[in-house]
């Protein structure tokens, strides 16, 4: 029993890490440019598909992850320069509509090129085994690596944002846009880089998630909504908030799906529990978000805005 | 005699900043009470407390004897507490005429009702009242103009016109002369004399000292969130503390 709980706990953390990577980009883009990017899920999906592509080209799993991330970075830059930058002055509704259009294009393109059948990108042999952990649990090596890589990237992101000049500009831009432009910084370049960075994170997450979820059209949308929930719960524009919220969401979602049915069976019949369980599990995260929006709309770890 | 408006020991603080400290103020029926003070003294905060947009940390607001602390802004507005805004708040998407008309309809039926869904209340019903208002406030020629095409002076006049139409029991004028040329300001002051003075009690927040001494029956001086003194214009003008605190900021005594 303990090992089951511990395993699901780790799965929850792993989901949380993936969500963090996506949400961090989303929240950065929203915080700095006030832009709602619905196509962020599609960038996640492209990361997975690019990884499949590069794996077939290079034969190396690890190289393919790296290349995929870089490819999505480039894609992000292209998107920002060609399209996204025209929309900063527009309303949020326009952001939603245009990026919705991008989702349609992305999903169809992927079907055209790879077909709509899910692709199972395999776990590399080196990571196919189990790793013995404390409490007598054996945890899949690959998932453990995902957690570690995610944490490393998170750390790098922290260093970037907190300790570098670019990071300072990003932080300043998030809390006071006007200030930054007055500083004479090349705002366009900053925005492009921020968008591309967000894309990179999403693409990396997608590439790593490929072997765990199956690679298929529309795989971005489920993660997208969860990521928005994370962003809102954590606080718009706040990366620390995104981390905390991602962990909470990842754990609640995973543990809920794993255990809610059993917990409910102690109070209602197994049949009812079998229906209510999964339903409630899916809804939990949204109920949490609705509650946070109601009682603490600024999020768990909001940015201190100085307007 | 009850005062139409009474503020009792109002204190407001944001974080570590004390915007208002134990402010007391009374407004009598039919009088014009001016609130002056250097920038940052807390005048706007006080107005926000009055209108309900801000909850004080302590203290009470009495409106004609009633404690209005718990009332939201629109409820206070329905009780007759009307205010104008430092930055004019007008409906930009409709003409001057339609702005005032909406205000008149709001006066008569502020709440949501089923009949509202079914029709447009006949506008000829308000036609003569509207015409009078436009004439009084010098806006007849501009009736079919959009607010964005109005001069600043006209916009201020429109704000005042809308304030009047809501049948106010008290009027809060928040820097109505801000940004006006001397000529426009003088005109607006005479408008206030003609249409409002003696009729509706007014709390006037202003920097223009000529206008203040012209219009006010009583003046409260606010400095650093505290009331320095309250008195007649003469008393205020002669007070050395006021001159010291205020004169260092303003030149036009």
């Amino acid at each position, binding site marked *: 029993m303990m090992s089951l709980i511990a395993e699901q706990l780790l799965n929850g953390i792993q989901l949380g890490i993936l969500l963090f990577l996506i949400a961090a980009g989303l929240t950065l883009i929203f915080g700095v440019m006030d832009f709602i990017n619905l196509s962020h899920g599609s960038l996640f999906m492209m990361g997975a598909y690019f990884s499949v592509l590069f794996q077939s080209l290079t034969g190396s799993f690890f190289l393919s992850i790296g290349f995929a991330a870089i490819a999505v970075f480039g894609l992000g830059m292209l998107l920002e320069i060609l399209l996204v930058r025209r929309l900063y002055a527009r309303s949020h509704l326009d952001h939603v509509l245009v990026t919705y259009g991008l989702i349609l294009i992305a999903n169809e393109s992927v079907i055209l090129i790879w077909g709509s059948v899910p692709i199972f990108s395999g776990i590399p042999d080196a990571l196919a085994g189990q790793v013995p952990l404390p409490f007598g649990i054996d945890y899949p090596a690959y998932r453990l690596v995902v957690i570690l890589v995610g944490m490393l990237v998170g750390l790098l992101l922290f260093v970037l944002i907190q300790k570098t000049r670019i990071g300072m500009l990003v932080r300043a831009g998030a809390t006071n846009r006007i200030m930054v432009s007055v500083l004479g910084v090349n705002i366009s370049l900053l925005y492009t880089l921020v968008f591309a960075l967000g894309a990179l994170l999403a693409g990396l997450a997608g590439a790593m998630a490929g072997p765990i979820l199956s690679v298929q059209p529309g795989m971005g949308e489920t993660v997208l909504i969860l990521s928005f929930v994370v962003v809102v719960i954590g606080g718009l524009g706040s990366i620390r908030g995104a981390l905390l919220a991602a962990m909470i969401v990842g754990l609640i979602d995973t543990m809920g799906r794993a255990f809610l049915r059993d917990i409910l069976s102690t109070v209602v019949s197994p049949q009812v529990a079998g*229906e209510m369980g999964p339903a409630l599990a899916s809804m939990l995260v949204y109920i949490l978000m609705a509650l946070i929006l109601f009682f603490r709309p600024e999020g768990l770890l909001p940015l201190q805005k100085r307007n | 005699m009850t005062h139409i408006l009474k503020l009792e020991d109002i204190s407001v603080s944001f974080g570590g900043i004390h915007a208002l400290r134990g402010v007391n103020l009374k407004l009598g029926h039919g009088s014009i009470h001016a609130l002056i003070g250097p920038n940052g003294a807390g005048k706007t905060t006080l107005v926000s407390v009055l209108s309900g947009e801000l909850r004080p940390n302590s203290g009470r607001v009495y409106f004609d004897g009633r404690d209005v602390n718990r009332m939201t802004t629109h409820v206070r507005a329905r009780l007759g507490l009307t205010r104008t805004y430092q930055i004019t708040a007008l409906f930009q998407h409709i003409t001057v005429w339609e702005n005032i008309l909406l205000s008149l309809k*709001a006066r008569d039926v502020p709440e949501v009702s089923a009949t509202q869904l079914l029709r447009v209340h006949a506008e000829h019903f308000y036609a003569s009242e509207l015409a009078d208002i436009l004439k009084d406030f010098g806006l007849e020629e501009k009736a079919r103009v959009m607010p964005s095409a109005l001069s600043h002076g006209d916009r201020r006049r429109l704000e005042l016109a809308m304030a009047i139409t809501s049948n106010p029991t008290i009027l809060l004028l928040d820097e109505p002369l801000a940004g006006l040329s001397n000529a426009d300001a003088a005109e607006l002051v005479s408008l206030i004399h003609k249409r409002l003075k003696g009729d509706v009690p007014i709390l006037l927040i202003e920097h223009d000292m000529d206008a203040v001494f012209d219009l006010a029956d009583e003046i409260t001086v606010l400095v650093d969130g505290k009331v320095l003194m309250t008195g007649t214009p003469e008393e205020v003008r002669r007070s050395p503390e006021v001159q010291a605190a205020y004169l260092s900021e303003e030149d036009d005594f």
Partner: protein
Amino acid sequence: MGASSLRLETFAVLFAMVAVGPAVAIVSGDVYQLAVFERALIYAVAAASLNMILGFGGMVSFGHAVYLGLGCYATGVLANADVTSAWIQLPTVIAVAGLAALTIGLIVLRTSGVYFIMITLALAQIFYFLAVSSSYFGGDDGMVIYERTTLLEGYDPFDSWQFYGFVAVVALFCILAINHIIRSDFGRRLVACRENTTRATALGFNVFAIRLTGFVLAGVFCGIAGFLLANQTEFATPGYASWQRSGELLVVVILGGVGTRFGPVYGAFAFVLLESVLSSFTSHWPILFGPFLILVVIFFHQGLAGLVNQLFSVRVKTE
């Protein structure tokens, strides 16, 4: 534009809206063409209801399709229980959709901006997952609806022409009602609340109550669209309430022209017809529709209604 040319436009648009379907069916000799136009009419009602709160109320709801789904399921449940009379089904749909909109509205209208968009999405998702996971409603696969709505003696809901007439009449009524509400005193207040909330409050308007009323009305009309959808497709599926569907409704509104009186009609017909034509060429039609949508948003913000207005004003000038 004078009042009489306004009435002319209204008559023209509404007449065209219900007449184009039969015209195509007669000319092509294919009565099944009517189904496409029924779908367009249904989308027009749903879009009009969204336009009311979005274009006039300024509320960007990303969960409006919930009411479509609710109306559909409510109708289906009743129909499958052999309760097919419109006199029972419609009031039920109105009650269900209205209650849901009231509940959701009480929560979401405390927020604004991005938060509003996100929370409407979240609450819609809650309902969606409920629909997906409950086997009683058919779960993920959805629920077949075995009976269409009956109205009076002699009305055969399975006769193509009579059914089209039924859909057209209900849709016409809804569009007229929505337009009437928009032009009423209430509609003007709703717009005022959007234009300058500060001034609206200062006038004594309870902005929250006004928005809530609009929100509930919009939900009810969208529910009625769901009622029609249940009849038309004879199927209820969670997909009708999905966020993708909500996105579609937003697309239809923007295509037609946000905040215009007949934008939803133009947008719905354009969307459904475009989808129908494009999908007959290729199953990959979204790849054409995506760029089209982006171009419309960037360059054609006034939408089709804007184009029509230009046409009309040109004609008026030459008379």
